[in-house]
């Protein structure tokens, strides 16, 4: 059961306060974007967004809507801070990561505002842990400016079809090449590793394909090391939407259903690799 933290002295309200019956609803999503130590947290009335970036080429966002929380309150228009995602995850899973049926960790999160640490109150089986994590000045984030009007190609696939493929990607290849086309091979993932090249083809009439809207043949390459972390999000998700725009920017959106059947989203944006060489077939 969630419990209330004592209100701050002098009657001030917290800039952000939220409570969640099952901390796993938050921790599993955060793990799906945990490929860097630090993340930027945005809280608005609609919910919480956690952003992680790397190499100025890739950005991942985890969205947890306000409806997922039992209580969710944001004082100002929006609250932003930078925080160590590694430490945050360690605290959220302080009672262990194995999920025994019937047990869950309850969470209350409080943030007084700029300069204050993020307070976490975690409770499981009557044991309470209090964590204070220092926050930092938020840094400027990339704006991929990826909107639905600029999308050239879009497909929606059932995640089960891609999970194994992503887990087994040939990591000796520097790039992952994605081909999307109204003609064969329709949707193709290619790697060029030490053993040779490998191609994974999904036909447009596959029963894994939920939606297929490809207008133009596009082949783009992305650094495989940047995309590999998205495998975690893929593993959690039931569906994934793959979109590219005219410049070859990639948007991967994962629909994740949590233990209570609620829907959350994780998205990855990636720039195409600039060292374009002739594709090996």
């Amino acid at each position, binding site marked *: 059961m969630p419990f209330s933290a004592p209100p701050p002295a002098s009657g001030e309200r917290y800039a952000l306060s939220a409570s969640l019956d099952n901390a796993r609803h938050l921790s599993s999503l955060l793990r799906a974007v945990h490929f860097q130590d630090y993340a930027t947290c945005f809280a608005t009335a609609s919910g919480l967004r956690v952003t992680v970036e790397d190499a100025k080429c890739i950005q991942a966002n985890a969205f947890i809507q306000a409806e997922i929380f039992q209580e969710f309150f944001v004082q100002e228009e929006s609250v932003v801070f930078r925080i160590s995602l590694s430490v945050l995850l360690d605290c959220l899973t302080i009672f262990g990561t194995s999920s025994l049926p019937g047990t869950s960790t309850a969470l209350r999160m409080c943030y007084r505002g700029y300069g204050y640490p993020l307070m976490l109150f975690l409770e499981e089986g009557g044991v309470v842990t209090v964590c204070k994590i220092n926050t930092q000045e938020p840094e400027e984030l990339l704006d991929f400016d990826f909107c639905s009007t600029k999308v050239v190609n879009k497909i929606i696939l059932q995640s089960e079809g891609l999970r194994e493929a992503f887990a087994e990607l040939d990591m000796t290849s520097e790039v992952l090449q994605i081909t999307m086309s109204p003609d064969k091979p329709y949707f193709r993932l290619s790697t060029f590793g030490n*053993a*040779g090249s490998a191609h*994974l083809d999904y036909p447009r009439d*596959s*029963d894994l394909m939920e939606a297929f809207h490809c207008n133009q043949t596009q082949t783009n390459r992305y650094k495989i090391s940047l995309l590999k972390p998205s495998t975690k999000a893929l593993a959690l998700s039931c569906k994934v939407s793959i979109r590219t725009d005219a410049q070859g920017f990639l948007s991967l959106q994962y629909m994740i259903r949590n233990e209570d059947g609620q829907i959350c989203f994780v998205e990855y944006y990636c720039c195409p690799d600039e060292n374009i060489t002739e594709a090996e077939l």
Partner: protein
Amino acid sequence: LSRIGDELYLEPTESGLSLRAVNSSRSAFASFLFAPLFFQLYEPGSAGPDTELFRCKVHMKSFLGVFRSLPSLEKSVGKCLILLKPRASRLVLQLHCKHGVTKTHNLAFQECERLQAVFDTQRCASRLCAPARVLAEAVVHFPPTLAEVTLGTGPGGKISLRNYVEDEAEPSKTMVTELWLAEDEFQSAAVAPGSHITFCLKEFRGLLSFAEASNLPLTIHFDEPGRPVVFTLDDTVLEVHLVLATLSDLKSNSRSPSTNGVSHLPAPSDDFADDLESYMAAMETSEGGSGGPPSPTFPLRTSRPAESDPEEEEEEEEEGEGAVPGTPPHKKFRSLFFGSVMTPGRPGPATTQEVLAEDSDGEC
């Protein structure tokens, strides 16, 4: 096959697709021959009057990488297409999976010589045949790290298995495990009494797991110490051979230098493999019985495939120089292919060379 060597040799023949491997010290050789009936479709290509059917070798790891995670493969893959494209220098492995998904792997290969160990099961004095389970249950008593094991025949037709202990080992620090199997555990046993052979267990374990999984009886053909032991599995669509060198008895192992300055039985080293690489070629298994004594010189066929790329030839030789040792070569195990190293420049072995296995009569 990956327990034997780092490279997989693919040789399509009229009688089926042969997959082979050899270890770096040339003391273990295995071949799996899949008959055309094993496949839904089998087209070995056509050999011209002067050319042979194309064959190649690929890195074992690259090939195995295509077939990762066997349990999920069984569930998701409908069929597998294997294409050899000499002109593109690619071995194409295409898996047709469920949901219409196709996985295509284009593996780089190297052209290679025909890989064939010389052995003749007809000339083996002893033969044992047992269900794989019996042997697996016997072998489980030995530690997984055990290198060599001795198989022997004892009184009352019993068969013994004993771990091999080096002479230099300290008696107080070694543990000896010995087990005996009664003759009736075997499906058939025709053994020369008092015979024994010592071979590398590690290389045998791979075949044993395969035999157990496919529920096939295993036949062991052996002879005197020093002559190779041959393990075979037979099925309507599959023929498997594993040939392992065996330890020769110290008493008969002469280390004295021979005449003509040709070196005699040195310990196999990396250099040994190099020289072998340049002489290693097909040992034609000649048709018709060769009942007489072994011929002192045996034919060497060093022909290379007609469209051989000069670049690839170089690669082949370089590759020999940089041979990565597989199974650590045991000093006393000899090569299955030649009795000893040749000094450079000499076209063939001298008559004083001892040969492990002479020309077979094409039975295997």
